[in-house]
């Protein structure tokens, strides 16, 4: 921890020193992306090491690192640098989603499908309902809904509730990968967040259509056609990507990790132009590989594993750098209230769903923790609202981003703690000899938690 803290400080001092070359506010001639990438990667890993002995996930360290060194606090990473790292983020989303899809074997999940659907549906419905009702009440006080009629208040609350109901496959996958967890809680949480992602995308498109109907003349094209193209196109592209990876692994079989990385770059570039969701493309590709193709998804995971740490570190550090802390402070009270209500909804919904499906009580007690984190998709949807509905969208996005920030920071800590209590941390297959050069001891905090 001391070593990591010193290294973190050293990296920060070096970067501050280098920035003194140019006057404040001016940018270097190059893109600055290499500097931002290198600094964020190294600093995020060290920040993760600083938090790990405290029993906190490294992922929280990555996010905090991005937030602290990002544009809003220390400003070492400037807004143009964050923008330049967008492509890295898009590639990372694709890679994380592909890995998440490869983890899910639907055949082995089939016996638990009742629990997955019951718990997932219960949690989403309850969280959505509670958050919607709270937003509807708050709409009488919130500045951005001032002057709206009743119908408009309802549709705005609906679309915002959809965003706040979104879960985070990226965070769940990040925690699972970092802790090398395996067990019922790990599998159930991952299955629910992946399937919920699809439900959220569809629901958002429906509620967004309702908003367009309520606010004529606002936003771009939408409706069922756009929804079908978005979801269907993303899934079809995912299957195509899965087929290409399968053929490559089968016929070529060398440098698989690099090939997948290249495919994710092509998907990120083309997906942006074709309005495909990289998360859905990656998930569909992963699910196809694990469940349809003769190639094992775990084989793909094994080859992409070396890229996992840099991918997660940079992705979450960029997510942290994009955090609008000043905006958050303006809505902190409402945001915390919404996050608490969301968490309560997830908890109650999970308990109800678990009782209906007769889920193991220990699992039922902990499963909601996997649904608390929010990141990628919810951030994307919040920003979409800001872009699509300019008169009131920015205010709504500020509130949403503030709420997401709370879940983003608290969620990973709670989920990791639940995994530790369930005894699932470190239960995945031991890494290969070349991977585990030095055996990494479990942190004392994990052992303490498990005893507790």
């Amino acid at each position, binding site marked *: 921890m001391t070593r990591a803290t010193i290294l973190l400080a050293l990296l920060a001092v070096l970067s501050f020193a280098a920035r003194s070359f140019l006057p404040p506010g001016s940018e270097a001639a190059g893109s*600055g992306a290499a*500097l931002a990438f290198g600094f964020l990667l*190294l600093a995020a890993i060290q920040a993760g090491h600083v938090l790990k002995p405290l029993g906190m996930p490294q992922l929280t360290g990555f996010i905090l690192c991005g937030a602290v060194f990002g544009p809003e606090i220390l400003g070492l990473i400037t807004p143009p640098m964050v923008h330049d790292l967008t492509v890295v983020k898009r590639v990372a989303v694709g890679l994380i989603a592909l890995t998440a899809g490869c983890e899910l074997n639907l055949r082995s999940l089939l016996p638990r499908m009742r629990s997955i659907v019951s718990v997932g549906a219960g949690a989403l419905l309850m969280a959505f309902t509670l958050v919607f009702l709270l937003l509807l009440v708050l709409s009488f006080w919130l500045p951005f809904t001032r002057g709206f009629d009743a119908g408009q208040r309802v549709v705005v609350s609906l679309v915002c509730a959809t965003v706040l109901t979104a879960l985070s496959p990226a965070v769940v996958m990040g925690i699972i990968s970092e802790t090398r967890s395996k067990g019922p809680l790990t599998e159930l949480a991952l299955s629910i967040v992946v399937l919920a992602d699809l439900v959220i995308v569809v629901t958002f498109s429906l509620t967004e259509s309702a908003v367009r109907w309520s606010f004529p003349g606002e936003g771009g094209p939408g409706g069922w056609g756009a929804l079908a193209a978005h979801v269907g196109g993303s899934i079809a592209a995912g299957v195509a990507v899965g087929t290409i990876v399968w053929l490559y692994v089968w016929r070529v079989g060398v440098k698989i990790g690099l090939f997948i990385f290249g495919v994710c770059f092509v998907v990120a570039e083309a997906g942006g132009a074709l309005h495909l969701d990289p998360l859905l493309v990656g998930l569909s590709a992963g699910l196809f590989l694990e469940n349809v193709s003769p190639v094992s998804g775990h084989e793909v995971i094994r080859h992409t594993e070396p890229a996992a740490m840099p991918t997660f570190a940079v992705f979450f550090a960029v997510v942290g750098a994009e955090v609008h802390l000043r905006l958050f402070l303006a809505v902190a009270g409402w945001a915390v209230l919404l996050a608490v209500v969301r968490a309560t909804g997830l908890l109650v919904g999970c308990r109800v769903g678990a009782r209906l499906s007769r889920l193991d009580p220990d699992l039922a007690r902990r499963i909601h923790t996997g649904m608390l984190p929010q990141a990628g998709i919810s951030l994307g949807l919040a920003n979409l609202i800001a872009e699509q509905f300019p008169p009131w969208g920015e205010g709504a996005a500020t509130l949403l981003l503030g709420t997401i920030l709370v879940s983003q920071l608290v969620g990973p800590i709670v989920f990791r703690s639940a995994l530790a209590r369930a005894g699932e941390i470190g239960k995945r297959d031991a890494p290969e000899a070349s991977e585990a050069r030095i055996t990494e001891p479990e942190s004392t905090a994990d052992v303490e938690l498990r005893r507790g």
Partner: protein
Amino acid sequence: MGHGHVARVVMGLSAALALAVLAAHPEVRRLERRFGITVLLSSGLPFLLIGAIFRQRAVGILTPEILGDLRPAFEFGLGWIGFVVGMSFDVRKLDRMPRSLGGVIALESIVPMATTAAACSIALVLLGVPWRNAGFARDALVFAACAAPSAPIAIEAFGHVVGERRARMVGAITDVDEVTALVALGIVAILFRPTVENVLWVLPSSAWFLVTLGLGGVLGIVTYVLLRGAKTATEELALLLGAVALCAGMAEHLALSVPVVCAIAGALLANLPLSDEIGVRKILVEVERPLYLVFLVVVGASWNPWAWQGWAVAPVFVFARVAGKWLGARLARRVGSDELPDAADLALALMPQSPISIVVIVAAATLYAHTGHADRIGWGINAVIIGGILTELVVRALQRLSGRARLPTEAPEPVPVPLPARTHSSGEEP
């Protein structure tokens, strides 16, 4: 972007990816060794052409947006290649070579640098470049730096021709003359600082020399400390990626030469007692080729093959360089030990142009992109790329004329030969 255009972009990028896969295939490497061709011809040229063709407005695959997205990979690639060159500068390895090797390396790299600088200067004057201009000397020195590096040889195959010990000697020479090229580039970057407006650091050249050395050194030590703390191979890879990106990014931010600063960091790391040296070298070599290919695509996109001046300078560059290598090898053979191959074999082994030459010219072009004379930088890129291809043909012809066996060249093997175990004074495991 229309759907037809998107489809073209997807197909184009997929084709580039497929070609990258093909180029990285072990069979391609085997063919390179068998036919004695460098990576520049076997894989490099197709990527340069892809970059050049895809960039054309009529084709429209490498749009400015996509090139912008590839830009970080390009900067990072420059740094990574510099880092790999620096890592080859292992003093312990050189200590095991005969003492005369220093003189041999100096002669075989400095003589072609001098002949190339002189010949290319004359060519530039004939093309109407005013020689009193400071940029003239800079361009001549950049050409000189491009002339130094020789393509790495296939030690095992060359060993069958001249003996293993001699082949290893030549291998060490080709490793170090890549370092010489970067040293020359570093000197150019310090003496001819690019103009950057509104900077707060206004320093003399001597101070920039210290800044370059100091930055490379500090980042090398930071990389070492980071890698010492790595718990898994995955973390080692992540830290190495981050360290090289940080080196490249900082060098670019301070308007220093990216591969030079990264090479200094790499050289320092190579000479420190790393706990997993073989693992680090393996990562460096495995990632090098894909990065080099992406680098070539971006270079190809900015390459202007229609600049006729580049075609005019290319034969001069090749002639001066090949003649310099021949003369350098003859002189080197005189000062060198008997463990060197004979002068003709040595000259033929050192003549093929290293892909690092393109890295050097592109690094210089990147550094001076905003300082004017962009047309001359374009000529240089043209001359060195065409020069690399011409050199292959000239060397082939010379080999046939002299009746010598074909001397194979190769890209570095993915798995490096481990260094002998060192004595660890601290008592830690080697």
